[in-house]
């Protein structure tokens, strides 16, 4: 949208002409990507690097305010009439006007399977502003270790692309663990970069082809000078749990981590009774987070990350006592919007679902 058009449409007069509906409601007649405020995009290219993944290039509208390397965003798609939003890391460098993400099939998960199997050019995607602190600042260390496993390569790749684009790669080691060569996303790009950039060394380990899982000996052999390196780490929870102490034991330099799934918490169960007010269902609060309790009761609340970062699961709690599963803090709430995925009942709770 041209800035002057946008300014005009955003004026109080046009607002009054469309009230109580919004200008967006009418823009949708032309193209649902158009909006005065909401970031939305269309898929402009689809590539399938491996059988179980899809790489999407998304052309955002002008409400997209850009991102920092390694950040993620919520992608929303309408599946069978329902809007589902999930977190994905941005692989494209901040300077790139298009957003690139790579989605790996996650079990029988709804959104990842849909995108891997059916994503196509022109598809409308709802976006959120970028979030995350994988890269706290723009500076690039003299020597760095990038270490990832599986689909965890995406934010790390995003960081590397940014450094390359700004021509700031001096001494970077990139160690990536994939199940097999056919499974590895960004394999071709990494190999090409490795050949072209003297400051970059790429080590790929295929765990299902005799490469072995991450351990102390292998890490020492691959990165003998780890002590001097600042590290960026991302992968499945089990991999993170194994890799993080190894790195910390070898280097005092900053370690940056991006996590795709919550690490298993000790006490994910609650207590008391949960009343779902709108649907008039009562359930025991014992079985996990309020989100899991709701799902167990047959409800279908919205969710995204299931780990407290996206706010997709936010829902009004009319009253009750809840425990924050990240901190274990218990508090009484009344008419409060809470993220259901990271709160459990700590007494009777009334949820407006």
């Amino acid at each position, binding site marked *: 949208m041209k800035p002057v058009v946008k300014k005009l449409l955003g004026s109080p007069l046009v607002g009054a*002409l469309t009230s109580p*509906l919004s200008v967006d409601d*009418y823009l949708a*007649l032309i193209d649902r990507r158009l909006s005065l405020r909401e970031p939305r995009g269309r898929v402009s290219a689809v590539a399938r690097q491996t059988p179980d993944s899809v790489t999407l290039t998304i052309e955002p509208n002008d409400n997209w305010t850009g991102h920092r390397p390694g950040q993620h965003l919520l992608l929303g798609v309408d599946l069978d*009439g329902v809007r589902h939003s999930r977190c994905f890391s941005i692989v494209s460098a901040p300077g790139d006007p298009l957003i690139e993400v790579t989605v790996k099939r996650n079990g029988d998960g709804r959104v990842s399977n849909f995108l891997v199997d059916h994503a196509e050019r022109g598809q409308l995607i709802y976006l959120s502003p970028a979030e995350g602190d994988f890269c706290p600042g723009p500076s690039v260390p003299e020597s760095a270790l990038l270490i990832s496993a599986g689909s965890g390569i995406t934010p790390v790749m995003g960081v590397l692309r940014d450094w390359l684009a700004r021509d700031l790669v001096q001494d970077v080691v990139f160690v990536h663990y994939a199940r097999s060569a056919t499974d590895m996303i960004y394999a071709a790009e990494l190999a090409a970069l490795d050949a072209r950039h003297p400051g970059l060394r790429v080590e790929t380990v295929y765990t299902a082809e005799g490469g072995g899982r991450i351990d102390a000996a292998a890490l020492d052999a691959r990165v003998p000078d780890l002590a001097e390196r600042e590290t960026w780490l991302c992968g499945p929870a089990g991999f993170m749990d194994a890799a993080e102490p190894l790195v910390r034991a070898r280097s005092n330099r900053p370690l940056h981590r991006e996590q795709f799934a919550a690490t298993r918490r000790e006490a994910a169960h609650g207590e008391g009774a949960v009343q779902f007010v709108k649907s008039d269902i009562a359930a025991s609060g014992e079985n996990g987070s309020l989100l899991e309790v709701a799902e167990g009761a047959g409800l279908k609340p919205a969710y995204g990350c299931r780990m407290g970062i996206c706010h997709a699961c936010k829902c009004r709690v009319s009253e009750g006592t809840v425990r924050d599963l990240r901190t274990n803090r218990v508090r009484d709430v009344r008419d409060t919007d809470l993220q259901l995925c990271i709160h459990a009942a700590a007494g009777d709770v009334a949820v407006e679902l």
Partner: protein
Amino acid sequence: MGKPTHLSEADIAEFGRELDAVRDEVMNDVGERDARYIHNILATQRYSEVVGRAMLMAGFLPPAWLSGVGLLSLSKILENMEIGHNVMHGQWDWMNDPALDSGTYEWDNTCPSDQWKHSHNYVHHTFTNIVDLDRDLGYSVLRMSEDQAWEPRFLVQPGIALTLAAFFQWGVALHDLEWERIGKDKSWSEVGTQARGIWGKVRNQLFKDYVAFPLLAGPMAPFVISGNFAANFNRNIWSFMIIFCGHFTDEVEMFDVEETRDEARGQWYLRQLLGSSNLDGSVPFHILSGHLSYQIEHHLFPDMPSHRYREIAPRVQAICERYGLNYNTGPLSKQFGGVVKRILRMSLPHRRKGNTLADESSVDAPVYAEAA
């Protein structure tokens, strides 16, 4: 008055379970088809508004003015009846679309949506047709049941009803102020807050329909003003008719507080059924009524996507037949005739003698009494 006597408590519970099964089946099936339906309605409403308002700008040509009024009326009716009312019931919440969220949707009506959700979704849908609790029973200006005490002011209620029809949205806007409670258990400051909400909506609608669009129209302003007035008027009349046919037709039942205490699910369903009446008609007619022509189905399942009422109605009717319950339906002419008769009858100080069925043979004769 009230509930039938030929069903045992177990029968009523089973009746409730059968209705629950219908509900569960539909709610587990909502998806793409329903989303497409509401998106088509949204597009129709918006296109008809845009084209209607454009035609009014050429309103000096009588055909343009007439089609402008027609399209704008269509748009306003769709927005209030099939979109706003139903969205605010949460019928489309399952889509997770912020534009169709019952929590935030604001409709083109002088009544603010939060006050509507209180007076309509909560008070009316919970206490449907319970005398003294359901404030929609006559909207506290009309006497609609023998069990409401007669007062001399009701002598002029036919005139009041006509006025209410012409200015229906304004009546709706003032409804939740609950003037009979003010100064008693409702504070003036609460009323003040509500009044400010109403004023915000009033101001926006008046500005849009009678200042902003006329200004845009320049010399055509008079045609735009009259056209917008006509469209608002048409919607008032239409929604008055549809809504009054929902609960005030001839055979509809009223209840007293006592008999509805501690209702179980099945009994609640039963009251919703007997307190509501349907309208027969074509598909476009149903859509224009916001599917309130399926008032029975709507009151049984207020948060089910409206177009599904059409599909389940035969099943609901069959269930009612099996339980010997009256499924009150008829064409608009018959049902609205019943409403008019009721308004006229109740304006006079007729009172049921005692509480026996025999006395009401001409009025409210419930069909289930025969079926029993």
